[in-house]
């Protein structure tokens, strides 16, 4: 059994790593829960954003926040374009899964053709910064990521709960026809939400560029875990996605500290299986 300090450090890194799961899960959960579109290309969009941030940073020496200011709106537009296709062909849940998988493959190939399959690392002065809190180290970038994810999740949640647009979206997710009969312009709201989800992928991508090592095949690494997070956090619930992300991240990290790193995948998926079998009311 590892020491308390090690476990505490594992817990902290786990929660912070879970912030990334939550941030990626956010956009996926919203489009799946509210638009009934399962967007596998969400991960590819995040990596495209990461590569763009990397390119802007290394070739043109643009600071990450300025890159984000360009990349995130660009991703919003990509989301609109994608939704145009879904809307035009009235794509259902299953078809959206297959189509976005194809998108992801095409994006992966495009990334590989331009940036090659080599590992890329965006070195910034911030990547090694950390705060010392008692015996524990807290990496600054991950902390900022969690704060940003928290603000986005909380803001989106409030937006869905409080504003007219948010309520209209939730009503449409329940029954689009009835909502339309009450004057909800579902089409335009769906475009807005699709754009937002892609923009969230852009935000996640900025952090991926700063924190992770980039390779085209990495697109698929988080897919399984993030899907588990989306389900555990309840479809369409932004705060749930973030909470589930941190829960899964912490559990994985502790399992890795106690057992061995190779056991990590069992944790998230066992949690998913148990939740699905338990079938609680809030799911």
């Amino acid at each position, binding site marked *: 059994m590892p020491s308390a300090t090690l476990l505490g450090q594992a817990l902290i890194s786990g929660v912070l790593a879970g912030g990334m799961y939550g941030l990626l899960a956010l956009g996926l959960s919203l489009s*799946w829960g509210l638009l009934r579109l*399962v967007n596998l290309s969400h991960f590819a969009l995040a990596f495209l954003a990461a590569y763009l941030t990397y390119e802007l940073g290394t070739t043109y020496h643009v600071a990450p926040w300025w890159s984000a200011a360009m990349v995130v709106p660009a991703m919003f537009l990509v989301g609109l374009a994608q939704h145009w*296709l879904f809307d035009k*062909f009235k*794509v259902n*849940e*299953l*078809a959206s*899964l*297959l*189509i976005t*998988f*194809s*998108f992801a*493959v*095409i994006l*992966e*190939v*495009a990334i*590989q*053709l331009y940036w090659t399959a080599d590992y890329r690392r965006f070195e910034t002065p911030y990547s090694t910064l950390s705060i010392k809190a008692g015996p524990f180290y807290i990496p600054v970038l991950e902390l900022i990521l969690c704060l940003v994810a928290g603000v986005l999740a909380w803001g989106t949640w409030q937006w869905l709960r409080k504003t007219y647009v948010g309520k209209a979206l939730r009503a449409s997710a329940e029954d689009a026809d009835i909502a339309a009969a009450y004057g909800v312009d579902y089409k335009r709201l769906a475009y807005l939400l699709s754009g937002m989800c892609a923009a969230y992928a852009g935000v996640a991508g900025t952090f991926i560029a700063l924190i992770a090592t980039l390779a085209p095949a990495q697109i*698929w690494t988080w*897919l*399984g875990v993030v*899907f*588990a997070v989306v*389900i555990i956090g309840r479809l369409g619930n932004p705060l749930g996605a973030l909470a589930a992300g941190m829960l899964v991240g912490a559990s994985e990290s502790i399992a890795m500290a106690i057992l*061995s790193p*190779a*056991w*990590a*995948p*069992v944790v998230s*998926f*066992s949690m*998913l*299986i148990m939740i*699905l*079998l338990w*079938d609680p009311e809030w799911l």
Partner: protein
Amino acid sequence: MNAARDLPKLVAGLAIVALAVLPTAGLPAFYDSFVYLVFFWVSLSTSWALLSGFAGYFSLGHAAFFGVGMYTTATLTTKFGVPFLLTIPAAAAVAALLGVGIGAVVFRLRRLRGELFALLTLAVTFVIGTIILNTPIDGGGGVFMSAVPLPHLMPTPTGTIYILGFALCVLTLVTAWWVAHSRLGMGLFAIHDDEDVAEAKGVPTFRYKLLAFALSAGIAGAVGGIHAMYVGFLTVAGTFELTVPLYVVLMSVLGGSRHWLGPAVGATAITTLLYAFISGGEAMIGRAVVGLILIIAILWLPDGIIPAIQHWAKKRRPAPAKARAEVVPAEVVPIVPAKVLPIGERHILEVRAVTKRFGGLQALAGVDLDVREGEIFGLVGPNGSGKTTLINVIAGHYPLSSGTVTVDGISTGGLAAHEIARRGVARTYQIPRPFVTMSVLDNVALAATFGRPVRAQREIRDEARHWIGFTGLAGKEAALPAELNLHERKFLELARALAAKPKLLLLDEVLSGLNPAEIDSAIRLVRAIRGQGATIVFVEHLMRAVVELSDRIAVLNEGKLLALGAPREVMRDPRVVSVYLGKAYAA
């Protein structure tokens, strides 16, 4: 005519012989290897479609079964020295058991939605992969198969693997064809369209899904067993990954996952295409092109290539002139005149102290009823009084909270809906729920197949045509339910119920939404049904029809029986008047 029908068989036979002797032709090993990969993907995607295409339970966990098969063969050959050929059935068996195990758990979930099934199976894949990685089965270093002796079925080792892959591929296609043309396939197609209705028509849905899962997983396991030898070196990362489940989905969907041959067509097309790019040194571009083709195919050919071709062929072929002359506009009038059978004294249905709770809501609070053989029994009451719940409880759609239901002397309270259906209970739905991708004839034939003892297919078809005629839908046999109007769909509901030759027929608001003329013909039809010897319990709001048709009526209110007796007397009962019109009128 015969020659045309035999031609595909002849071509298929020749192709099988030609492909079987290919490894002896002395071609470079490259050809064996490529064609083996085609067989590999055809077998895998076809096996996937057995559950996911036919029954509509979309699995993303095919890599789990395939991978378990691979590791079963690898473990048995390398650690226990079992001859390679003997490990293939073992690989199939282990994978099938895993499939049945998963199915036995997840198919019991009441709220199992399609995408949850997909994710559960995907999650199982990663869990199994991790377990294998961390136990001596793999141990993290991978398993080498190079020391395993390969039987000399063909002159070369690649030829041997080729012929095994080929044999399994043929076996898989034969299985798929057989399933598609059997009772099992019919049941699976019905499950795909509407599982509740399938169950109510007598399809043992749970067993069929498990059976399909076992077949699907078992074949994938056998494919894995052979493939372990082909790759020669197994790693967890290379086995339990996303490529297998996603490619089998792409291939099946591209070819048409509801047709037995569809996945084979999709698999051949995609494998060939990928191989062309790989051999041209452009593997990455190949992946992108496959992705692009898939997007285009899903947007423009959502049902897949084979159904698109069938549809196109059907449209091109003009209807034969003779048949066209026979098609008269469907007139919905029963063809058999009503004859009055005496009402027996025996009780065909006995309901005793039946209660049904949904959480805190008491939908039925102790109902007692007897229905006599041969009578038409009306069930009325205000909205929310429990009429439809009672129908659902008698038909077994909802389990009882307490009490007993006896049909023709047999207690049916604890039985599954399909078992109740087989004991002679049929029902219709207030809003018609036909199987949307099946023709009118197939809809009725399904009910005739599963509601009654096993008979020859021809006999079933004839009966189905009889009931279609009986309900006035003659000429619509080949139509899809979407092409029918509401009252035709209601009559299709009746035809489906009748095809099961029920002792007890439960009708749930067959008249709602019909115009006066249609109501008259429906009333005549209900009488004609009774004339066939069935006992009818019907829920209805339309009082004219209730009084006209019923021998006796029961009034339910707030889950309790309020009144029971001859229609005119019951309707004059002050308590009944008060629940319908309010207390002021009752005085």
